[in-house]
């Protein structure tokens, strides 16, 4: 029988009973988390399911492996940062618009209150509006379109820093990275999504190693 786990708004699984026991033993699943199997109509605390079944003691792990505890949060988008740059270059930047939305979608999953997606959508809207203004044909249309693009760049930078703040908050408070986590303001300003993707690539690799050793 398989079980789904619910913590807050997030659902995980399904997992077998053995996996569930292992996650309880390792502390990834709490006895107070909610749990539901295929035959159950209601969510019940994990404690009720585990009940009297003995939970195997977590195997003593080496210090290095213990530092990499599995995370209940989804991993960040897994495109290699080099490929992201390459696709951005050969699509004249179009790919960046798509990828920033992918990154924002992930941020919304791990930080449901994040406003970054809406700020980026505002940037997209202003850029598209600038294209229409430029070809509208009225007086000073080019100047106005230029100003709109400038405003969009400013909002883009604001969105980048908003995303930086979301990522830092996530990896400092919710899903702490061993050794701490910080993003450079200068790199965020100049490279924004590529810089974030570079860190996502590194974090994913670390988490995947952790998945193997957990």
């Amino acid at each position, binding site marked *: 029988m398989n079980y*789904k786990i619910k913590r807050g708004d*997030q*659902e*995980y*699984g*399904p997992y077998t009973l053995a*996996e569930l026991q292992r*996650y309880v033993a390792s502390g*990834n699943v709490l006895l107070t988390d909610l749990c539901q199997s295929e035959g159950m109509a209601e969510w019940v605390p994990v404690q009720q399911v585990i009940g009297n079944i003995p939970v195997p003691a977590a195997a003593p792990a080496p210090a290095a492996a213990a530092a990499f505890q*599995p*995370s*209940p*949060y*989804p*991993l960040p*988008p*897994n*495109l*290699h*940062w*080099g*490929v992201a*740059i*390459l*696709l*951005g*270059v*050969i*699509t*004249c*930047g*179009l790919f960046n618009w*798509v990828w920033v939305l992918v990154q924002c979608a992930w941020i919304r*999953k791990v930080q449901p209150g994040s406003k970054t997606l809406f700020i980026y959508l505002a940037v997209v809207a202003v850029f598209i509006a600038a*294209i229409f203004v430029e*070809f509208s044909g009225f007086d000073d249309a080019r100047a106005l379109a230029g100003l709109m693009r400038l405003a969009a760049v400013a909002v883009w930078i604001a969105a980048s820093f908003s995303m930086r703040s979301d990522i830092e908050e996530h990896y400092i408070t919710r899903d702490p990275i061993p050794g701490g986590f910080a993003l450079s303001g200068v790199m965020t300003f100049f490279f924004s999504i590529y810089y974030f993707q570079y860190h996502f690539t590194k974090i994913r690799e670390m*988490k*995947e190693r952790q*998945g193997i050793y*957990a």
Partner: protein
Amino acid sequence: MHWESRVMSGRTRGMRCAMANVCAGVALAVAGVLYRFPPEQHSFYPQCPVFHYLHVLCPGCGATRALAALLHLRWEAALQYNALVVVLLPFVMVYFAAAYWRACTQEDFAWPRVPAFAAAAGLAAALVFGVVRNAAALLG
């Protein structure tokens, strides 16, 4: 096994598949616009900001015209506009086709993995291409 949020129902996969279909539709629409309105004859396409402000040919300069030329099966013109795009396009198409397939068929979606050496080789090729085309423009 990774401790990672899994897809809980077919509805979630269905939504992801619908999203993939929307993306594929947008890509086809862009290709249609490029085919119908070639950049050589229409000026509404955005200019490369690198070339516009710095007068330097970036590795992506000419990509839009190269893609439009490819859609008209003008291979030589496409290579002249941007050889890098012509060479990389098959890999990019295979990559996104694989991503589309995964989005529509797999419960646990992950973007196809690109080996680090392939990413590094692609970046190096783009860098060399950028240097060579600017050197050729200066000397020519």
